């Protein structure tokens, strides 16, 4: 193998590696892949717990803190109650944040909803899981290993966005409850538990 071939193969491998904004293979244990493409993957467990990976384009100024607060506030407006929050790390050591919500569906059944958010210069990558509340205990410990199996892409080598600050959740919750566009009935209840955020990075 001469130098030209090696460079060519490296280029092909690099290009192929960079096609997807994320990589999560094989499917996490207990989940079967329903569909998958460059911007979304969906998995299903036997008890109908769903796991998804969704990719959104990032915009200038879109930091982990900004999107984290945006996500919590908007979900709170829809009746989601934040019960847990902690930083997580991807397989390639990019820092994200995890939110655990409780939620009552329209049919009155309690649900759990956990979201992991990673923000890079190019993308927002959301890994979320949902199912009946009765399965929450079984699955809450499985999300962190899933994060550690997920590779997120889109970070510039010289950029600082990929390891930005964690969201300031108190502000997000306050905004949600004081949203004038929503009636008190529609406003989300205050989170019952908000652990202290992880140490911020400079």
């Amino acid at each position, binding site marked *: 193998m001469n130098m030209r071939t090696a460079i060519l193969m490296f280029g092909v491998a690099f290009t192929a590696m960079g096609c997807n904004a994320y990589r999560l293979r094989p499917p996490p244990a207990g989940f079967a892949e*329903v569909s998958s493409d460059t911007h979304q993957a969906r998995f299903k467990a036997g008890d109908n717990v769903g796991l998804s990976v969704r990719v959104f384009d990032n915009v200038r100024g879109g930091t982990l803190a900004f999107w984290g607060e945006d996500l919590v506030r908007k979900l709170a407006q829809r009746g989601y109650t934040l019960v847990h929050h902690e930083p997580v790390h991807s397989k390639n050591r990019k820092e994200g944040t995890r939110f655990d919500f409780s939620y009552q569906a329209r049919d009155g059944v309690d649900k759990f909803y956990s979201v992991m958010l990673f923000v890079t210069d190019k993308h927002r990558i959301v890994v*979320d899981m949902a199912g009946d509340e009765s399965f929450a205990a079984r699955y809450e410990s499985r999300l962190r290993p899933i994060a550690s199996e997920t590779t997120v892409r889109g970070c510039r080598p010289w950029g600082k966005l990929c390891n930005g600050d964690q969201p300031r959740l108190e502000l997000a919750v306050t905004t949600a409850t004081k949203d004038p566009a929503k009636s008190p009935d529609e406003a989300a209840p205050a989170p019952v538990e908000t652990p202290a955020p992880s140490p911020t990075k400079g």
Partner: protein
Amino acid sequence: MIQPPVMIQPPVMIQSPVMIQSPVMIQSPVMIRPVMIRSPASLLVVMLLALGGCAKAKTSAMMDYPGEAMAPAAPSTWDPGPSDYEFAKSADESAEPAGAPAEREIGGAEQAIHPSGANGAPARSEMARPASTVGTTVEEGRPRSEPTADPPDVDAHYIVYVAEMVIAVYDLAESMTRAETIPETFGGYVATMSNDRLVLRVPARNLRTVMEDLARYGKVEHRTLQAQDVTAEFVDVDSRIRALEETHAQLLQLLSQARTVPEALQVRQALDGIATELEVLKGRLRQLRNQISFSTLTVQLIERGPYEPTPSSNDPFPWVDELGVEATEWK
């Protein structure tokens, strides 16, 4: 020597097979020949009399008449005028009405489709090849045109089945691809297709099997089956075709016997009118046969998965709308 037309063939006598086959009537060539060649009016009278009776009863005297063949002088394409249409129409109406016992014979054409399934789906639907409508043999003075089919099946029913299915599937593209191949397996075809909708034409006898196969693709959200009984129309059209074909054959015979150009033209006009009506009726019969033997099955596939609400908002970043329990959990 020459008998007046009234005395030659009263319509009542023509419709009676006994009278037709009697020796008295057989001698009619001698009686008819002068009438036919004298004038167009005589020709018309003979034709009308023949058509009045030949729809069902057969005038062996006319058929067996050994007249000289005359090549038709009329052009091959003839524009039938109103009189021709009326002639053809009257000839058609002279036949026995559809539904009469003798008219129920379909020439052994179609085997009925009997919906004997418990759920109303067609249990069996066998379409036999239609036999020739009219026999053309001549046997010992018997009528030349005689139906050769078995006695009519009074229980025969001709049903057109139209079915619809709405199926929720996990993988829409794959299910569409699979559904596309189903008609080929059963001898049908895809009539129309879009992203999530298929209109299949499948043999009626396989409709139930096809629907069962499709139901395995996912969850059947909706299923309908409509059966339309077209027996009356089918029998009516078939009978009219047979009557017109007999008339057509007899007019051809008359055409070969015409002695003058005006006579030939007149017969040719009548022939063209009947031919046009025959084609229309045959087209309708073909359409009915197709609808009976091939059921129409419309399949709508919908993607099965979480419900995704889209709250109205002017937020510039509505990305969270795509998140949530409804968009993630499987039901």
